[in-house]
């Protein structure tokens, strides 16, 4: 059984093959990927939304490697105890079901927590604590005494061939885009009372919005100085660092502007996108054994031999991470968000 927190599975590649793959991916400026994609190009995927009539919102995505996921979102009305209008991250509940794993195995728990973090942590920072509607939990408030509780059930339909986080995150994004809640008929602080006509139900997230969208989490790897998106299994195996980067659309452009004015890292991020979290899934040192003296450690012993793969050591450079963030906040994140919106237009 693979280690739950690690994205890399045992690659059936020889040291020479791994070294070849690493060298071609690390070519300065122009990495050559095994399937001929450009570094920011995603594999084709097929998606559909609104597939489960019994849910508030649902989506299915199939990746090119054949892995598929289905997400169903169900909403319930619940009484608010604290009387707050800001919302609580416990109102969103995510469960991830992966064939061959129990619910309480490390991988499903880790994945669901990572996705819940992106969803629930949206407006936890100081700039949006004024009851903003940007985040998901702000949208779930009905009034002072009532709120929606959202159950997001994620089903992976096939064995995880590569690290399933991007698939699950993109499917959840689509499902949330297609989620509708019944139209509220009661006003103010009354007990909630809804219109029973599903036709007039309102979208949880507004359509074609340039200001708000559910978050997405992308898997990004760095090989040498290169940043590579949507890595396949072999690319993950030789990557230096594997990171999960979560972004969403931001309502307030001012904060991004002020950052730019401060000359923050000289980045020119798209002001419409906001970085939510960066998480290291795998550090470069993941393949080196801990607690082994250098003299006896096979990965630190002899000097490099050309053409033979050696596990990486050490960490990842700040400049690489900054570059990664810039790319995600730039055109790549925007392209992915727009592409996914395209799927949900017809529903």
């Amino acid at each position, binding site marked *: 059984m693979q280690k739950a927190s690690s994205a890399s599975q045992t690659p059936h590649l020889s040291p020479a093959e791994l070294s070849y793959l690493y060298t071609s991916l690390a070519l300065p400026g122009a990495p050559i990927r095994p399937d001929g994609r450009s570094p920011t190009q995603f594999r084709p995927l097929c998606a559909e939304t609104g597939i489960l009539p019994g849910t508030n919102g649902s989506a299915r995505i199939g990746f090119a490697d054949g892995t598929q996921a289905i997400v169903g979102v169900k909403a319930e009305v619940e009484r608010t105890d604290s009387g707050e209008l800001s919302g609580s991250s416990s109102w969103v509940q995510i469960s991830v079901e992966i064939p061959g794993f129990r619910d*309480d195995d490390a991988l499903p728990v880790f994945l669901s927590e990572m996705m819940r973090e992106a969803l629930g942590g949206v407006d936890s920072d100081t700039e949006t604590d004024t009851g903003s509607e940007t985040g998901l939990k702000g949208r779930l408030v009905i009034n002072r005494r009532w709120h929606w509780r959202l159950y997001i059930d994620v089903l992976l339909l096939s064995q995880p061939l590569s690290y399933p986080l991007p698939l699950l995150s993109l499917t959840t994004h689509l499902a949330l885009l297609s989620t509708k809640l019944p139209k509220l008929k009661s006003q103010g602080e009354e007990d909630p009372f809804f219109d029973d006509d599903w036709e007039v139900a309102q979208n949880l997230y507004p359509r074609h919005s340039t200001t708000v969208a559910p978050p997405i989490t992308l898997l990004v790897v760095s090989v040498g100085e290169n940043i590579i998106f949507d890595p396949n299994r072999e690319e993950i195996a030789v990557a230096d660092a594997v990171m999960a980067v979560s972004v969403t659309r931001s309502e307030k452009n001012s904060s991004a502007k002020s950052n730019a004015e401060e000359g923050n890292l000289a980045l020119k991020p798209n002001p419409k996108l906001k970085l939510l979290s960066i998480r290291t899934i795998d550090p470069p040192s993941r393949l080196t054994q801990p607690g082994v003296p250098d003299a006896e450690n096979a990965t630190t012993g002899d000097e490099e031999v050309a053409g033979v793969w050696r596990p990486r050591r050490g960490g990842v450079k700040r400049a690489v991470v900054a570059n990664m963030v810039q790319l995600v906040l730039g055109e790549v994140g925007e392209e992915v968000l727009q592409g996914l919106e395209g799927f949900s237009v017809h529903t």
Partner: protein
Amino acid sequence: MPLDTSTTYPLTRLRLDGRRWNELRLLQAQISTNPASSGSSYLAMGNTSIMCTVHGPAEGRRGEAGGGAGNAAGAVVEVDVNIAGFASVDRKRRGGGSDKQSSRIATTLKAAFQSHLHTYLYPHSTISIHVSVLSADGSLLAAAINACTLALVDAGIPMPGLLCGCTAGMSGSASTARDPKNDELDPLLDLSLPEEQELPSLTVGTTTAIPVGEDAMDDDEDETMKVSLLNMDAKVHYTYLETMLAVGIDGCTQIREILEGVIKGSNKIVVPRSDIL
């Protein structure tokens, strides 16, 4: 839940969803839905929808029952049933592992397909079936049997015939002996969830008998059906059992034709329809 099946049915002879006693719900199915598995299928019986994937026959994973070496006599069938949280009307809370209903379905499916498939062809290997219930509206076991059959056909695992499942019930509680002169209760075919909760029902799975001896060469115009699975959770007077079984077996025959159509229809891309005939 007070539903009106038992009060309105005798008056209208129509069930809650407007069907007559012998009508199946709309059955739609697809095979080869998931390219990452050996075989896969999607099946919807009314509002019950199920996705099924099959992996194998392949070498069993180490550390599982059979010690990785598997069974020398034949393949081991493993079934894993997952009823999604959003499958029913109210979201179901699950604590840890799997619930009782899904493990019962898994055990029944495992027993049914272990003896149904020609497992002796694949010694030391495992055929693992994964069933995901996307939407549950009654007849879960029957729908799961049909979905598994389709996925196993898609995976190309040899079997003597299609194993088809169907439910049958009675339109009343049927707890007293049947009165042949004043027969008030009708048998019902393919129960939906409200009916299943209220009325006694059974699930029957049938397959065609393996042709042996002289009959082997006969054209199978009148195939004899063999019951290979029978499951009943309700209490019913034994005098009704024969009727229910007969209706269930008849339903299986209808489902069998639909499934055969699905399997033949899915070949269109490879072999044009005109060439088959």
